[in-house]
């Protein structure tokens, strides 16, 4: 039996897609709701967005990815209104993970990206009694 590790500000979190299925919610709907007006005009519904080419910001390598995610990561997330001081903390955490392509982030890293609360405060929210937007500790398989 593996030892129980107490989560700390370095513990990684991600969005668990299965949580959305189990809770009758649609992750792609949520992603679509986070799009900026410009991207929403391009993809009026989640179904309009399929797979597109994404150019890596450092290597220029091209990969085929979900258009919603490409828009969020490479366009919407770079706009100031994506996460503002008025954005609720749980929404800001969810959006920061979306912008990171759901690559797991720790409370410390999330704090650097969303500039809200503090790493310990974010950890407390993530470990709260209710799971918000499917954000859970990341377990490497």
């Amino acid at each position, binding site marked *: 039996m593996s030892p129980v590790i107490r989560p700390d500000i370095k513990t990684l979190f991600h969005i668990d897609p299965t949580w959305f299925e189990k809770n009758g919610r649609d992750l792609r709907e949520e992603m679509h709701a986070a799009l900026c007006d410009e*991207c929403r005009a*391009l993809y009026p519904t989640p179904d309009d967005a399929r797979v*597109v*080419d*994404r*150019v890596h*910001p*450092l*290597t*220029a*390598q*091209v*990969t085929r990815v979900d*258009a919603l995610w*490409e*828009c969020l990561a490479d*366009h919407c997330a770079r706009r100031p209104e994506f996460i503002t001081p008025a954005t609720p903390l749980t929404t800001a955490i969810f959006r920061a993970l979306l912008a990171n392509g759901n690559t797991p982030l720790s409370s410390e890293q999330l704090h650097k990206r969303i500039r809200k609360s503090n790493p310990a405060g974010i950890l407390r929210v993530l470990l709260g009694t209710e799971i918000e937007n499917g954000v859970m500790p990341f377990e490497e398989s």
Partner: protein
Amino acid sequence: MASSDFWSAIGTTAADSERAYAFLLERGDAASSREIAAHLIEWRVREEQKRLAEAAARRAPIYQPKATYPVGQHLIFSELDHREGVVTQVRASDNARLAPFQVIAVQLEGETAPREFAMEYTAPHPLNAEREGLTEITLRPEEAIAKYGETVRTALLQRLNADKEFVRLDDGWFLRGLLPEIHAGYLNLAEAAIEQSNDALRTADLLKIFEFPDTIKRTAAAFALNVALSNDGRFEDVGPSNNPRWFLTRLEPAEARERPKILEVAPTRQFTLPGELQTIATELQDEADLNGDANGAPAPPRDEITLILTYPHRRAGTLPLTPAVRALLPQFEHPRLRFHFVDATTQEKFAGYAIKDGYYIAGLPNWFNARKLSPGAYITLKRGSDPLTVLIEHQAQRERGLWVRVARGVNGQLTFAQEKRPIAHKSDEEMLIVIGDPVGLEAAAQKAHEHHSLATLLEEIFPELAKLSGAGRVHAKTLYSAVNLIRRAGPRAVLHALTESRALSSAGGGYFVLNETHR
């Protein structure tokens, strides 16, 4: 020539931290940030030259997303560790959000499946920037160190400070994992040794007392000991720059630990004085004129300086640490420098402390008392035989009765009288004031703090001093010496207040008189 980006990036990356780590590991000894920065520059220049040579040998262009490449073209991918690949296919892009571009399939060396990369992609991208760094590095490493060393050092310091693997002491850096253990027993021994010698001891002296195993490098042991001592509140480095000397804080005199209240002075503006008063201000060396900044006024090196004692320093047992006085001592970065005064007449030796942020020298109450010095006494400081020795003399003379100004506090007012008093030292006649009643002066000082501006205070003191002079004139130096009995003020502030006073006028030669309307 490499781009400025190439040089400004040195010292900023994780690879640089790792290289600094390896450098210290190989060296097995602490290094200054300058040495580490120089090593990084040499290393990065060598790496860049090697990379350029490899790229030139392969004769393949560096991949840039904005360029156009035909099938069969060989390319170098700088962001993929400079691996080489060949273009195998070209297709149109598929992304409605982006302007159309081409996508090339590239077979990279050592990989089985091709990867795709953007081509004719004109959107802003770091790889589309002009890559001057790849053209040539014309600077030799020593030239690069001279030109970019300080920039690299600044960037490096940020990284090293944030990395717990590195330990810093002043500008020395070492690896935490390589520090020899300094246990509590060693520190207790150090405390006993310093107490017994009643003097500051060098790190090397302390190491001789400990019996460290021979396997431990002396310099590494010295660094570890310096780190341990600096982290223990019992000890303080009171040595010159780069020459730690350890002393016990509990053995330091109170006036060296904390700035005496009587030396505290309110910050003042910089004043321009008329020529005559400017000469007087220059003669009166007083740290109160520094306004907490001694850096802007470097003093030429001198071997000797004569100071005129003022009442605040007489009471505190201190002397001003002006740039000229500081030039007699070695450079120091820590809060205190412990050195030795040697009385030029008696050869008596005693400790002095130069206080960096307080701009004063402590350790003189007994010396002042034994010589019965009054404010106005001349004190000469001379460079000693070694950097940590300063000769001190007070220009003694046969004791004789002299008619002098005697200050007292009466009902909270500063008063002066001409009395015959025994004086056994030479002094500045204008500044000599014998203290008749220290307790009364204290009460007058309290009252002066509560109620008066400097100009008002001078106007109040003036008649008291003028009555002692037949002509009703008072010298600016006398007023400066007198006002400092009850209010700490620098010469420039006092002289400026005199020039601003409506009640007082200059009579030439540094003397002031009361205007007719105020008599």
